[in-house]
């Protein structure tokens, strides 16, 4: 016997089913992330058994000192930084794509990563501190200030009248080229030692992770996420087109500026800690969009989980590929990410972008 429902009520049932399915997908992503972090923590140049690592995680006081240091002070910060950085970059990319109505928008393609690299290189090659009060943190602070400057330049220009979304994208691409040229110039004049430092930094790496960096990235996320969440319906509406969103009562211009500002912060902070990890900001949002659609109530957490999962899994790979060595994660994200991404896009033949 079939249940008795009128035809007009049927779509609401189907919609409830869709919502349930999406919540399930989010839960699945979260479980995979936890799993990936666990594997990430148990892998490393020092060979410990998974059971030993788990025991150290659960009760650190019972473990021997060396193990406690390796697990809690080296591996855990790296694993957690992969999570916060992956989530931040992916969320930043997701919202850039949303507000700029362009599938290619990301912290990387809009020049923020290039600006950060240039800032870092200024410190490593010339010893220039843009914020002289903290010499020891010269590299990340330089990188952050440069990335923020690039973001604010884009932000400032987009407040001008008559500047369209396309202009912003073109400007971002121009920034990528300018900063890359400036970086190449620095590299040309750099000493051998400084050059290798710059090259290593631009490859992107999680190996310099500390609990402090994890905390800073987590705080930035915790500040930005509620602000995006409050604008979830309006941000989703923007994807229907500017005119239509405006017709629904969305203050498109103001929303775009607010989001662009949050996105700048969200992208600049992690980039200044880990260097260039280019791919997450594009792949994370696209994975989330394919799995969950663009209703921001699901897309927002989905993009964060997808980004965190991808970077965490990449971190695992970067340790597992060459036993005893940790490859720079920026290399792995692109090498492994591109084929995966191409497969995903080509098999799921949806026409949203």
């Amino acid at each position, binding site marked *: 016997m079939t249940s008795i429902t009128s*035809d*007009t*009520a*049927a*779509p*609401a049932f*189907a*919609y409830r089913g*869709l919502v349930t399915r999406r919540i399930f997908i989010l839960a699945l992503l979260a479980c995979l992330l936890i799993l990936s972090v666990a594997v990430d923590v148990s892998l490393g140049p020092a060979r410990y058994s998974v059971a030993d690592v788990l025991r150290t995680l659960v009760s650190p006081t019972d473990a021997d000192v060396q193990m406690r240091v390796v697990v809690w002070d080296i591996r855990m910060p790296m694993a957690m930084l992969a999570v916060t950085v992956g989530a931040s970059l992916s969320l930043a990319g997701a919202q850039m794509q949303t507000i700029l109505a362009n599938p290619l928008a990301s912290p990387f393609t809009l020049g923020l990563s290039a600006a950060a690299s240039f800032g870092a290189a200024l410190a490593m090659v010339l010893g220039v501190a843009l914020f002289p009060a903290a010499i020891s943190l010269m590299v990340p602070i330089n990188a952050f200030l440069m990335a923020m400057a690039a973001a604010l330049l884009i932000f400032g220009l987009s407040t001008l009248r008559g500047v369209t979304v396309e202009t912003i994208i073109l400007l971002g691409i121009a920034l990528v080229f300018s900063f890359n040229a400036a970086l190449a110039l620095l590299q040309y004049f750099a000493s051998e030692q400084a050059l290798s430092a710059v090259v290593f930094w631009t490859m992107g790496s999680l190996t310099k992770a500390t609990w402090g960096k994890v905390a800073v990235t987590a705080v930035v996320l915790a500040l930005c996420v509620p602000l995006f*969440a409050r604008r*979830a*319906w*309006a941000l*989703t*509406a923007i*994807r*229907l*087109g500017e*005119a*239509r969103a*405006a*017709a*629904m*009562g*969305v203050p498109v211009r103001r929303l775009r500026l607010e989001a662009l500002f949050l996105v700048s912060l969200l992208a600049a902070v992690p980039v200044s800690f880990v260097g260039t990890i280019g791919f997450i900001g594009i792949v994370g949002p696209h994975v989330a*969009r*394919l799995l969950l*659609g*663009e*209703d921001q*109530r699901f897309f927002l957490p989905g993009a964060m989980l997808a980004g965190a999962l991808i970077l965490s899994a990449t971190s695992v790979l970067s340790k597992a590929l060459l036993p005893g060595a940790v490859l720079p994660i920026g290399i792995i994200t692109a090498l492994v990410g591109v084929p995966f991404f191409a497969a995903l896009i080509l098999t799921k033949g*949806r*026409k*949203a*972008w």
Partner: protein
Amino acid sequence: MVTLQLENLGARYGRHEVLSKATTPPIRGGSLTALVGANAAGKSTLFRRIAGQMRGAGTVRLSGAAADDLRYMPQDTGMNAALTVYESIILALKQGGGGWRLSASELTAVNDALARLGITALAERQLPELSGGQRQVVSIAQTLVTRPRVILMDEPTSALDLYRQYEVLEALQSYAAESGAVMILALHDLNQVMRCSATTIALGEGSILATGPTLEVLTPAMIRRLYGINSRVERCSRGCAMMIVDGPAESKRVAV
């Protein structure tokens, strides 16, 4: 009963004045009002000015409805987001406020909007998969779901086949009749205008030339003035008014 009245409305893009002194008598709700005029006459501009998306001279007087009871449906149909039809209509409903949760009454409102326009079967389809005509009907559903009291629609039937045009205009007429809403539709097909709208606003030469009962406004003289076309308005064998085009008028219309 809702009424809308325009008093000396003006609008300009930079130095270019598109509209000046656009004035109408009170336009009553409950039936459809057509807005006619040549390309670039300023129909969309007038809508945007009424909807408050543009500033300019003059006043829009509303009675029986608040300013946020007004919905303007723009012409573009560029909806390529990864959303289902159902989600896109929820979205329109949720812009007024409210949290992440959906109430039963909100879901009912979405169901009703789908049923009213005959697109219940499209509910689970992704927007990018829809045809241009289907998107247009979806965007009408997005407009109606908030049950607005004043509706401005920019060419709501431009992408629809003959049957769909008829069906959508019927749906809009019945919405107007039951809600008493003022509904102004920018339309190009004058025969459609004569069939469905009680009132017509003629826009040309940078202002509103006439507002009144459709057949009193759409005279051959006014059609020549608006479009530069010679025509006759005649009655068919069943008594319906219809326009027959004879050809371009000798004196070309003045560029606006």
